[in-house]
């Protein structure tokens, strides 16, 4: 949202060079204070887009370019999704810049996505001069009120002296407890204002905010007792393990207890996919066994997950027979959807080892075998045809299977939303944590391409593959420009079924095949990529698939591979909306 700002008057002599040490009082501008805060917080990468109301910060950034990398995106939504990808791949807080008005409103989708997927972000938006607030000034939008429902915290700064403490709070709030997005709206006068800077003090405590609840031992003891008495215990885990850096603790827990464990879409990669106790994916397009056996287990142990409706299906028929142990850091999640028998409120990095210590070392071979029975059935009816199809048409599953062989499960896979997302999450192999990046709770189409850019900056040494459908890629395709300009090595794999496939699947199954506006045309993606100086190719034949994927992965730099897949393939198994998890359909 670039504009020419005619109000701005600035004395060039006022320009201050960046402050090296803040031990004694120095006079700096609000904009410099923002960047000093970033340096103190270890921020190295910002995703952003300049404009009138944030120009003083960009002006200050000019002097900090050797310390802070700024990635110029093509749209603010792309910027915030890149920030999310960065945060999810690195475990650090993503930082995003946008200007006032439309620049800020373009962040809203990403904020909502980060809010529901608990992604730590600090977004800085420029705002009109304080004296213009409420006057319908050019590019003035009430950003604070628009973003209130989709931020963990937000604050408007109108006085530069507040900047160091407000940013310290912002980083503290975004990254602690259940993480989330924070937005700081800074008026232009505050960005320009000079003030006596006394240095940056990191925030470690806010009296009204308690990110880490105190763990009560008696609850852990009761949970352990339930687990020890259980004949058919079942662990379901979510992103809480990744956010809590508790992958090791989690693995030790399930291994000692001999507990089968299934993941939510955001929990994927917290436990290696080929771990013998990893029994698969939960939810609407999850695996057969984990869904059916949710309604047969005697103790359900939920770790860092929030019982989303896509996981539970019909709530009044969900795990009614089971005693429920719910481990979560956010007290508002306890009993929100599923009533728990024992709530273990706390950071799972602390609670899991406490539980592990108290549970008996056990195996549940018969119970584990039951999962295998269901897996065999699912292989027979669904997986076999998906991974080794006998038809001429390519399936999404076989693309992922070959990708697994070539990456050996070491890549970061970023997915968009729809059929390709479900298929990828079902079949992709992961060895390492923080490897699956997708828009889970919000289901934001257009997420993958910008998020993959961010992921590459967050984990520069890893291969990043963005897997996107032909619908989603057209929502944020402008970010190819960002890839071009920054030479970011992102592998773009478009699975093109020439439909808005997931909507089409629902229209087929639940709306008598009345295909209403799902027939979407695509441009020649290889040509589009070429226009952005990105190499690519299109594969429509099975014979060329492996070679195509190899070329993509071995290519030096970004590469776009479009794979034409079957037009009317469906994702199964499926728990139809309004049905119980036990009513999962294989076809």
């Amino acid at each position, binding site marked *: 949202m670039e504009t020419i700002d005619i109000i701005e008057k600035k004395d060039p002599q006022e320009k201050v060079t960046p402050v090296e040490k803040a031990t004694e009082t120095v006079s700096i501008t609000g904009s410099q204070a923002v960047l000093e805060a970033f340096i103190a917080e270890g921020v190295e990468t910002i995703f952003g887009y300049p404009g009138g109301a944030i120009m003083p910060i960009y002006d200050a950034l000019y002097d900090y370019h050797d310390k802070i990398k700024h990635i110029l995106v093509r749209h603010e939504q792309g910027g915030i999704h890149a920030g999310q990808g960065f945060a999810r791949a690195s475990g650090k807080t993503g930082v995003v810049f946008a200007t006032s008005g439309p620049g800020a409103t373009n962040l809203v989708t990403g904020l909502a996505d980060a809010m529901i997927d608990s992604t730590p972000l600090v977004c800085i938006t420029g705002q009109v001069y304080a004296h213009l607030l409420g006057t319908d000034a050019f590019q003035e939008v009430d950003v*604070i009120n628009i973003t209130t429902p989709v931020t963990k915290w937000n604050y408007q700064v109108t006085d530069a002296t507040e900047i160091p403490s407000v940013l310290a709070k912002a980083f503290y709030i975004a990254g602690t407890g259940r993480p989330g997005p924070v937005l700081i709206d800074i008026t232009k006068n505050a960005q320009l204002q000079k003030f006596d800077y006394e240095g940056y003090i990191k925030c470690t405590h806010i009296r009204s*905010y308690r990110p880490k609840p*105190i763990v*009560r031992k008696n609850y852990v003891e009761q949970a352990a007792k339930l687990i020890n008495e259980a004949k058919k215990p079942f662990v379901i885990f979510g992103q809480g393990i990744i956010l809590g850096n508790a992958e090791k603790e989690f693995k030790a827990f399930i291994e000692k207890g001999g507990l089968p464990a299934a993941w939510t879409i955001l929990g994927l990669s917290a436990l290696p996919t080929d771990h013998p106790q990893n029994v698969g994916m939960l939810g609407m397009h999850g695996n057969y066994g984990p869904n059916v056996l949710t309604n047969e287990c005697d103790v359900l142990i939920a770790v860092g997950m929030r019982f989303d409706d896509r996981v539970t299906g019909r709530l009044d028929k969900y795990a009614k027979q089971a005693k429920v142990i719910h481990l979560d850091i*956010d007290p508002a999640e306890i009993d929100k959807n599923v009533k728990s028998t024992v709530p273990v*409120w706390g950071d799972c990095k602390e609670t899991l080892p406490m539980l592990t210590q108290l549970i008996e070392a056990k195996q549940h071979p018969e119970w584990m075998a039951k999962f295998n029975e269901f897996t065999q059935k699912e292989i027979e009816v669904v997986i076999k045809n998906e991974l080794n199809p006998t038809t001429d048409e390519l399936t999404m599953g076989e693309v992922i299977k070959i990708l697994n062989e070539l990456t050996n499960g070491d890549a970061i896979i970023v997915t968009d939303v729809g059929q390709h997302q479900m298929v990828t999450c079902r079949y992709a192999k992961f060895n390492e944590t923080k490897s699956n990046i997708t828009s889970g709770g919000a289901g934001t189409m257009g997420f993958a391409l910008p998020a993959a850019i961010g992921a590459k900056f967050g984990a520069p040494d890893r291969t990043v593959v963005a897997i996107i459908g032909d619908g989603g890629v057209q929502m944020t395709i402008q970010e190819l420009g960002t890839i071009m300009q920054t030479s970011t090595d992102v592998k773009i794999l478009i699975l093109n079924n020439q439909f808005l496939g997931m909507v089409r699947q629902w229209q087929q199954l639940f709306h008598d095949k009345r295909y209403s506006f799902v027939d979407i045309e695509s441009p020649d993606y290889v040509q589009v990529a070429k226009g952005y100086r990105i190499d690519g190719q299109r594969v429509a034949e099975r014979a060329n698939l492996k070679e195509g994927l190899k070329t993509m992965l071995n290519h030096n730099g970004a590469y776009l591979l479009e794979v034409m897949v079957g037009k009317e393939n469906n994702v199964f198994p499926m728990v139809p909306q309004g049905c119980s998890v036990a009513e999962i359909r294989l076809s």
Partner: protein
Amino acid sequence: MKQEFTITVYTENQIGLLNRIAIIFSRRKINIDSMNTSPSEIEGIHRFTIVIDETEEVVRKVCRQIEKQVEVLKAYFNTNDEVVWQEMALYKVSTDEIVEKVKVERLLRECGARAIAIRKDFTVFETTGHREETNKLIKALEPFGLIEFVRSARIAIIKESHGFHAKLKEFEQKEPSEEVIENEFLNQQEEVFSM
């Protein structure tokens, strides 16, 4: 079963927090019967008093969402039995009517009202009390031409509360004690869980 609940929220004084709290209700399509913001027993700490008609389960979940807000220190919910509360109402009537009709005077006495302004043309009465009491006076005054009526939000005192001073001190510490971090599960565990 739906019933009236009074939610008491202790918060920091922060612009925008009112909106953050209000949208928790509007998002769930819960009508707020009354909402009052005021200072509390502690300088700098604000106190919201919110009245809604809902089931206990909904109220509990809503309170958790309120407490989740960064600037909220604590949210309590209570049934009407657990609080002492008042609402204030003002009534404007024509002075001529009042002077002429002695009955009104008797009614005012019965309703515990006071005249807080008397002019030639109008008189303003005030009552404080529960909803039934303030409603009673409306009914009584209506036949004589009630020109204006306004009622305040409910303000309430929690009978069992010892105030917020001690809690705030704990909150100010980095590691508050278990007792101060209240949670219905943690405090009424035997009701929730038994082996």
